[in-house]
């Protein structure tokens, strides 16, 4: 078990009712952790549309999680618009 800090933004922050929370988890990767927080809060974005950041840098879903990591799930951003 490790403790990680999960950060939520925008629609995920509204859905969970918190900007961040400490989670005790057996998840080894952000991929496993995302499954956990989806079942906890019922987040709607599919993982394919979400990015992950660990300690304020973008990371891959397979990065091994460490005790105390700050993990931010990044739902689709404002700018991905077809009009230029």
């Amino acid at each position: 078990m490790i403790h990680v800090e999960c950060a939520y933004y925008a629609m995920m922050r509204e859905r969970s009712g918190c900007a961040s929370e400490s989670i005790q988890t057996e998840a080894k990767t952000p991929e496993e952790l995302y499954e956990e927080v989806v079942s906890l809060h019922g987040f709607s974005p599919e993982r394919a549309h979400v990015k992950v950041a660990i300690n304020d840098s973008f990371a891959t879903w397979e990065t091994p999680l460490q005790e105390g990591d700050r993990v931010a799930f990044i739902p689709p951003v404002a700018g991905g618009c077809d009009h230029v």
Partner: protein
Amino acid sequence: MFELSELPIDPIRLAKECRNDGAGALVTFEGRVRISNQGRTVIRLEYEGASELAANEFANIEDETLDKYDVVAVTCQHRVGVLEIGDVAVWIGVLAAHRGPAFEACRFVIDELKERLPIWKKEFYTDGDSGWINSA
């Protein structure tokens, strides 16, 4: 240089601060709040950003820009909080010796920034509805 700002963006001040004796060109871009989106009338909107991550990712975009184009500096300020129609949401300034690379790099920076920076926009409409944009 990058900043997420809770205060109104001041394009005149930002442009004045873009100084470099070797730069003969300053190209700037202002993104403003538009009254309609996808056929709906917008009253106001709210931007929310992940500030540390945004600053780190902007630094990556800045490095890529300096590698790819013959420019000397890139500055960006992005608003967070509540914005009204016409308010400046994002400001970019690119300094270069000559105008060609400055124009090209400015376009590159705004395109990359919109794809990559962790900044979200919630629109509020005249019918009382609201929604996060591109919240797949």
